[in-house]
């Protein structure tokens, strides 16, 4: 196949995956509707309801498989072939893939299928956002991105993002469940707040070291190679650091009287908010970030071999000379 065909194939794959997730979501909602008046301990009598739950999981699994194929195709569509992490659209379809994958894998070991409605809704919404708002052509990687660290850095960042996202969904459920006295329906079937809190903690405990590796080890090593300094206080770096600090606070909060439970869950959500703001927001709000790969923020900035303004004797005056288009430094 030609690159153009691979690209079309990849789009079709992402659409197919999104449709599968959407159907899974519908099946989950159908199951929820069927469970509306069923008490927690009761077995599901209605065959159709039980079927809908199983069908939803199967659809999710198919969605993950198709999603993976679409990701690989995206990489094959580039010339030369590369990992599909060159712009925000590609980051987002990779991030949602990891969220869906972690969920599907977790169902093997953990009793976590009740999280399906939330996960499928989130993934469908994020894929739609990626498609409508972030889509970008398959472009060759600029020099600065062309490094083995791209794979290591992005894989770890995306994996931890996936884990934190699922942790955040669990924390939302925890907060809602803790206030709820429902005896039937979805909330009643969700495990006890204690269990939700623990599951959420496990997701975060998995995500945090991976995030540390991505942000504080591979990031600085690569930044040193590509930009000449291992920490630049680039807006993306600042927010990755903020996310790290907030999740560190979350882990401490779980061991502090007065912060356990509700406050810790709120901290986890604050962490997720900083994480996603960093992932998407920074690219649109910050014009100075060297991580701005989104089309909206100016594609030329991703040509990271920056133009130079060398303030020789009078830096003040040079600033006036080089004008607004000038990228960093």
């Amino acid at each position, binding site marked *: 196949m030609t690159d153009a065909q691979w690209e079309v194939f990849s789009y079709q794959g992402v659409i197919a995956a999104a449709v599968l997730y959407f159907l899974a979501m519908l099946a989950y909602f159908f199951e929820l509707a069927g469970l509306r008046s069923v008490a927690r301990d009761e077995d599901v009598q209605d065959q159709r309801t039980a079927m809908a739950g199983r069908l939803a999981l199967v659809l999710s699994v198919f969605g993950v498989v198709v999603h993976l194929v679409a990701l690989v195709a995206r990489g094959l569509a580039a010339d030369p072939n590369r990992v599909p992490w060159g712009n925000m659209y590609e980051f987002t379809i990779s991030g949602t893939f990891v969220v869906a994958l972690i969920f599907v894998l977790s169902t093997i070991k953990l009793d976590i299928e009740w999280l399906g409605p939330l996960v499928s809704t989130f993934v469908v919404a994020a894929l739609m956002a990626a498609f409508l708002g972030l889509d970008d052509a398959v*472009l*060759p990687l600029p*020099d600065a991105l062309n*490094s083995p660290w791209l794979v290591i850095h992005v894989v770890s960042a995306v994996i931890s993002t996936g884990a934190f996202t699922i942790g955040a969904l669990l924390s939302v459920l925890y907060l809602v469940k803790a206030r709820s006295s429902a005896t039937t329906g979805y909330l009643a079937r969700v495990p006890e707040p*204690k269990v939700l809190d*623990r599951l959420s903690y*496990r997701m975060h*405990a998995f995500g*945090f*070291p991976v995030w540390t590796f991505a942000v*504080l*080890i591979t990031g600085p*090593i690569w930044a*040193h*190679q590509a930009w*000449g300094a*291992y920490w630049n*206080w*680039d*807006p993306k770096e600042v*927010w990755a650091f*903020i996310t790290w*600090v*907030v999740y*560190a*606070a979350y*882990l*401490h909060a*779980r*061991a*502090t*009287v007065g*912060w356990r439970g509700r406050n810790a869950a709120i901290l986890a959500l604050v962490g997720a908010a900083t994480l996603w703001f960093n992932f998407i927001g*920074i690219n649109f*709000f*910050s014009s*100075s970030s060297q991580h701005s790969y989104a089309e909206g923020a100016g594609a*030329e*900035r991703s*040509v990271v*071999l*920056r*133009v*130079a303004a*060398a*303030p*020789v*004797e009078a*830096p*003040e*005056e*040079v*600033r*006036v*000379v080089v004008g*607004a*288009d*000038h990228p*960093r*430094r």
Partner: protein
Amino acid sequence: MTDLQTHLDQRSSDDRQATSLPNDLNARELARWSWRQLTSMRTALVLLLLLALAAIPGSVIPQEDIDSLAVSQWRDNHPRLAPIWDRLDLFSVYGSVWFSAIYILLMISLVGCIIPRLFVYARALRARPPRAPRHLTRLPDSTAYTTDEAPEDVLARAADALRSKRFRVETSTEADAVSAERGYLREAGNLLFHLAVIVVLVGVAVGSLFGYKGGVIMLNGEDYGFSNNLTQYDDFAPGSLFDPDVMEPFSFSITDFQVDWLTEGDRAGMAREFVAELAYETEPGGETQDYDLRVNHPLTIGGTDIFLIGHGYAPVITIRDGEGEVTKSGPVVFLPTNGQTFESFGVVKAPFAEPEQIGLEGTFYPTFAMGRDADGNLTMPASVWGDALDPLVSMSLWTGDLGVDDGSASSVYVLDKADATQVLKDDGQPFRMDLRPGDTVTLPDGLGTVTFEGVQRWNKIQISRSPGKLVALGGVVLALVGLLGSLFIRPRRMWVRARRQDDGTTRVEVARLDRSSGGDPEDGAAELAEIVASLQAPTGAQPTSSRSRKEQS
């Protein structure tokens, strides 16, 4: 307090609690109380959140040491706010007093927390597993059964089973019970993580105090060399304790520079695969070596790294003055004003020209074209491509005092127009020259001639020395190792008690206590079940009761 509660409350000292201020205090008690507050977990948490909050402004407001250009623009646009922002250090958040205050307090809090815990841990490491609580079956994970075996046999087997599971086992303190504990490394990981944070900070501090970062614009060609000493840099940012003697005595020149311009596709016009071919010597008179300097592939000489971070054009201009003498000849660095098309701005000065000084100011277009508006009318000239396919330099002419004679510093990129006058044509329009390579223009008023000989390239090279970077990296790696230990190692205690009952049978109680805050009941129940199974293996004992957290909830 029952002994059960004692055990449950005896978590590792994670729970350093802040306490309210007592009423009557002398100075010493107040200091003690303050220290306790500062090193309490709650304070550490608040400081962490403050640190996160304090980092935000730096990502929103332009920062002096990151993008000084943006700062000056911001100052121009907000003349009223800028002084206030200045007073609040908002243009250099990460070096500001208040940001430093937060992380220094956090570090003090951390040290104040870690040091006592080191002693606690040292004692805990030597301590034997504690005695069994009186009522084992009241513990969350516990079970009991009766058997015909002698209590001694059961306890001996329990000790073996626990040892084989790598528990530290204590059999001698009690006659009828075995205590065991494992997972000591969790706290070790925890301590390692926090100590490593300090190591990272030290590494970063060493780098910013003793290191330096400098930049130089290097014209391509063997005629233009750089040797590593202070005078050769265009910009130089040393740490406050930097000592110029540590600068390695290397030198280099750029023999060639290549760029691959994409000519098709969505990103046509983008440049890729920059290669600057360096010829360098690590010390004066040393052997000359070659290196292909590329993005992501810095050259390391000793402790110094050399990076390729930019490129641009330097038109070669020759100025003959009114007396026919060559007063200026050679490449002049023009700075790109557009990162895509490499339209560049520059200044050529000939202060020694006779009869009058000559100053040129203008724009270089690598690939010249006239812009057109929607109706097809010619608009502003522009460069349409970054590569030098059809270069043109367009300059205006100034004479008079260019301000370079008085010895004060002036930028080679700026024409000082205070005492200079622009040369105008007869119709009153500014005199402008548009030159292609090889073109010569005769200046009016017998000032001389200007020749555009051709185009040279230059590279911006960044040179930095950041000592302590490996310390910082090692620190983060240690922190990660510690983190893994503190998150995934589960400290837990197990007890097995066996007592002869009145009817001659033996009642065996087994209990497990998870001491990690992220305990996992499923795993706990499984471990308990394994121990019980290995105790019961040889005989068919009857379980009498069993409790687990699952049933409780």
